[in-house]
């Protein structure tokens, strides 16, 4: 069974190559053409990437669990391969992703790049965790109260005995 979650994320900054003349690099979207050649492994530095700006970053997420470094990745299972890309063109941050890029031999991906939206993600907060320090505080107060009550009771009993 394929692992659903990403196991390796490798980031490399790819050097710019010649601009493809058949693709319009202008907004709203930028297409990058990404070619890799190797039968059994992906050699990122040797792939050909046609981009329009030198600051494109490719983030590879392999689901194989294979270890690797950015200059020589040999995933044990590369039948499913996720790639996301991020780059800046004319001051605008673009991103794109491609899934299911599979097979052997020369790989060519056409990744449509979208300008990064001015959004974000909401991260759920553990409300019990937020209360933990208060719980500690109230527990301490409770312990102090009980201890004081017991102490007072003990002193009273002792006085009564005398």
């Amino acid at each position, binding site marked *: 069974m394929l692992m659903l979650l990403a196991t390796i994320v490798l*980031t490399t900054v790819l050097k710019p190559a010649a601009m493809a003349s058949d693709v319009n690099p202008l*907004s*709203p*979207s930028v297409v990058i053409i990404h070619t890799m050649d190797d039968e059994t492994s992906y050699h990122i530095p040797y792939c050909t990437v046609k981009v329009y700006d030198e600051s494109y*970053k490719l*983030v590879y997420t392999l689901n194989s669990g294979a270890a690797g470094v950015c200059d020589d990745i040999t995933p044990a299972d590369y039948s499913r391969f996720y790639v*996301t*890309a*991020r780059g800046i063109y004319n*001051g*605008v*941050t673009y*991103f794109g*992703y491609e899934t299911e890029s599979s097979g052997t031999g020369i790989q060519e991906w056409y990744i449509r790049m*979208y*300008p*990064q*939206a*001015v*959004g*974000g*993600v*909401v*991260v*759920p*907060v*553990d*409300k019990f*965790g*937020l*209360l933990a*320090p*208060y719980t*500690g*505080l109230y527990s*301490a*107060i409770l*312990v*102090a109260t009980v*201890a*004081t009550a017991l*102490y007072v009771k003990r002193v009273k009993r002792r006085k009564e005995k005398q």
Partner: protein
Amino acid sequence: MKAKEKHVGTKAQIRAMKEKERRIATAIFLAFILLIVIFSSYFTYNFLNRPQNQTINPTSNPESPQPKAIIFDQLSLTFPNQTFVQTATNILTTANYTVYYYEGNQVTVDLYRSLPARGYSLIVLRVHAALGAGEQPPVALFTAEPYSNTRYVPEQLNDQLIKVAYGIVGQEISYYFAIWPNFVKYSMNGKFQNTTIIMMGCDGFKYMHMAEAFIEKGAKAYISWNSKVSASHTDQATIQLLKHLITEKQTIKQAIAETMEEVGPDPSYQSILCSLGAK
């Protein structure tokens, strides 16, 4: 007789020893109580102490007849656009507005909190925004204040503040506080007075919660996007909107309609500008 004296002496010794033990126990108990008091004071100070409201501009005169506008440029941290800031400021100052500009890290929870009481006619929120989870989730407006689970605890428990991240591919994840509609309703100081809010971030009008919260708080109108939007498009559209709204003194509906005609929906996300409370 001698044996009895000896017996009494032993009893006294035992009593003295017990007394000593009792004193030690009392000392330990008092030290324990003292520690708890110190511990409690420390927690009370740390968790209940809130920073004082940020002073926006000590030299501003709240009774000035000149209209005031504020630009929250939290986006300057990720999508800086000085041209936008200059153009927007020029449009506003030409129309006799006093403009207050807050960039990146200056956009804090307390700055949001103090907004209604400051008497701005126009508020431009150039901020990231994110939708929560679930059915019809509210939108959260980013601050630049790093998230902490020990700050603003009551607001976090009451769904007024939430933890958010940019979610930009290839960037290290940092968490920030963001405000939810409940914060606008219950934690903002004072009431808006005839204020127009332009929320430039994503999904401001995906659902109505934030718009309704601002209107309920006294805002005249709330303008935002009905889906995701790119930084370049929201900047371009907002400049056009300000021109129509401020320079040409069009109504909000007219200004939005003309702006949409000029710039169109966002080319990538197809979002359009919407408004609530506008005529």
